[in-house]
């Protein structure tokens, strides 16, 4: 496997991008660094979603349920009990995993659109929960967290980049490993996979937990970067939709494509900011066009072209 990895063109392109990315703070403004930092966390959201969809075959319409659980748990613990950041992030990740298990159980029994609905309902419930218990959660105004990761833009940027690269490497590695193969099989044809001797339910549950872990951790880290947590940034369905679009734009089942899609989406959103309210319109329109004409997304289409030759 390592041999193929080193000789693969993809690896070299990724390495080049990594070097470029790591050295950006030397010649780019803090404003742009800030946008990219945000997009890197989004990249992890999208990659975690792709693992679940692309590999386990489960469509999560509310990734922000897992993200929000991680973010708010970390934020609340930090704000109310003053635990150190690392412990809060860990707590957030564990809470998100719990949420992942809660979502997984019905997923193993429900057919068709019902599971997607459950994921949407989960987000709505979380949203309502946060608004009701505003005393603890900060409600619609948001929650301010006393600790932040770093003050310096460059430090935040490098941290986020490092986190995304590490998460990407793990998720990508998983997808290419025997476990990834079993997951793909489980998502594509559960009956045959079981007949080949695999406990499909166990593997899908594991996929949910991994997806939840990364979503929750990224969510928690992101609010420690931003300094606040709010429904609008980590729970809202609109955010979840962006995560899905990012993964689809980049290319389902590629993991790395999801990160590319997320970065593109955030950058595009910023670039279109002068358009004011129309920016969301344009981004959605572009996403819709991609779905209609390039359903395999950026990376997916590139890979397809490679396969044909």
């Amino acid at each position, binding site marked *: 496997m390592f041999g193929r990895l080193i000789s693969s063109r993809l690896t070299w392109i990724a390495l080049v991008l990594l070097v470029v990315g790591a050295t950006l703070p030397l010649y780019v403004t803090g404003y742009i660094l800030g946008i990219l930092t945000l997009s890197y966390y989004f990249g992890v959201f999208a990659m975690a979603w792709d693992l679940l969809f692309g590999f386990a075959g489960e469509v999560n319409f509310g990734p922000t349920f897992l993200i929000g659980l991680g973010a708010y748990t970390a934020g609340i613990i930090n704000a109310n009990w003053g635990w150190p950041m690392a412990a809060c992030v860990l707590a957030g990740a564990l809470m998100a995993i719990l949420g992942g298990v809660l979502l997984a159980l019905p997923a193993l029994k429900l057919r068709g*659109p019902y599971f997607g609905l459950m994921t*949407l309902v989960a987000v*709505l419930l979380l949203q*309502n929960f946060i608004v009701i218990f505003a005393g603890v959660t900060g409600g619609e105004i948001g929650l301010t967290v006393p600790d932040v990761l770093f003050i310096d833009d460059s430090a935040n940027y490098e941290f986020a980049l490092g986190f995304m690269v590490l998460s990407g490497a793990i998720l990508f590695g998983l997808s290419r490993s025997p476990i990834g193969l079993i997951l793909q099989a489980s998502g594509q044809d559960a009956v045959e996979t079981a007949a080949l001797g695999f406990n499909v339910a166990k593997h899908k549950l594991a996929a949910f937990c991994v997806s939840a872990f990364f979503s929750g951790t990224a969510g928690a880290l992101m609010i420690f970067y931003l300094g606040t947590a709010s429904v609008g940034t980590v729970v809202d369905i609109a955010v979840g939709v962006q995560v899905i679009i990012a993964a689809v734009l980049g290319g389902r089942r590629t993991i790395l494509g999801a990160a590319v899609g997320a970065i593109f989406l955030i950058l595009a959103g910023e670039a279109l900011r002068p358009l004011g309210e129309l920016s969301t319109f344009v981004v*959605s329109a572009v996403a819709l066009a991609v779905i209609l004409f390039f359903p395999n997304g950026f990376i997916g289409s590139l890979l397809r072209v490679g396969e044909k030759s």
Partner: protein
Amino acid sequence: MLGLQILIDGFAISSLYALGATGFTLMFGVSGVLNLSHGSIMVAAAVAAWVFAGYLGGNPYLGALGGVGFGLIVAYATYFTVVRPIQRSKAIPKEETEIFVLTGTLLWGIMIQEAIAYFYTSNPKTVRPLVPGVVDLLGVRTPLNEIATAVICWAVIGLLWLLVNRTRSGKVLLAASINPRGVTLLGFELSNVYILVWTIYGILAGIAGVLLAMFLGVSSDGVGALTASAFSIVVLGGLGSVSGSLIAAYVVGYMETFTAYLISPAYRTIPVLLLLVLVVYIRPQGLLGRR
């Protein structure tokens, strides 16, 4: 007194929900499409009615007509530019068509929502009611408009029932929801059936949107909540079952009204969401669901 108030208000809002949900579930039952741009079509129709009423010197009747017509146009646009291309696309594997339709209609809905906000802001809009005035109903001061809303909703539902059960095209529509292959074998083009169902859907969503604007007002911010409530009602009642949606609409409408009056309007949607979770866990096919 409060009980009567809840009864009347709950009835009106449930009737409105019923109208919207009926269109939504008919769409799913006949063509298998869960249209996540539902709320945006309703609001588009409502805002169009507001615009027309404004230009035409405040005539609510013509405004309403214009609104419904616009809703129909937006529905057709949804079908021909988003849904049909996805369903016919060769690049999308068959098992994923449903997911793509869901995502595609979701994006389309966001586009419509943002376009409305861009041109007309997200401020709430109301349209002058068709029937102004207040009446004393069993001791409760009720706007005539509220009663008119319930009456119109049920009249439309009644017309729909007549259409489906008494006309030739309606019966073909019903047959298509039971067995599309059978309809083809009997010489009916399914593509025509789909256009018919989108026409009916557009009109229903349009009327529901316009009535909502007259009753409570609409805003582009409310698009998501409208789609969510239609979705919830339809799942509770059973995907594809019109009678199920009608019953579920009243369950949801009254649960929301009770909560709004007795606890707080902010918590309106919570009992419904909890009920939804329960139903999906215990009986995912809903009350009367088939598919």
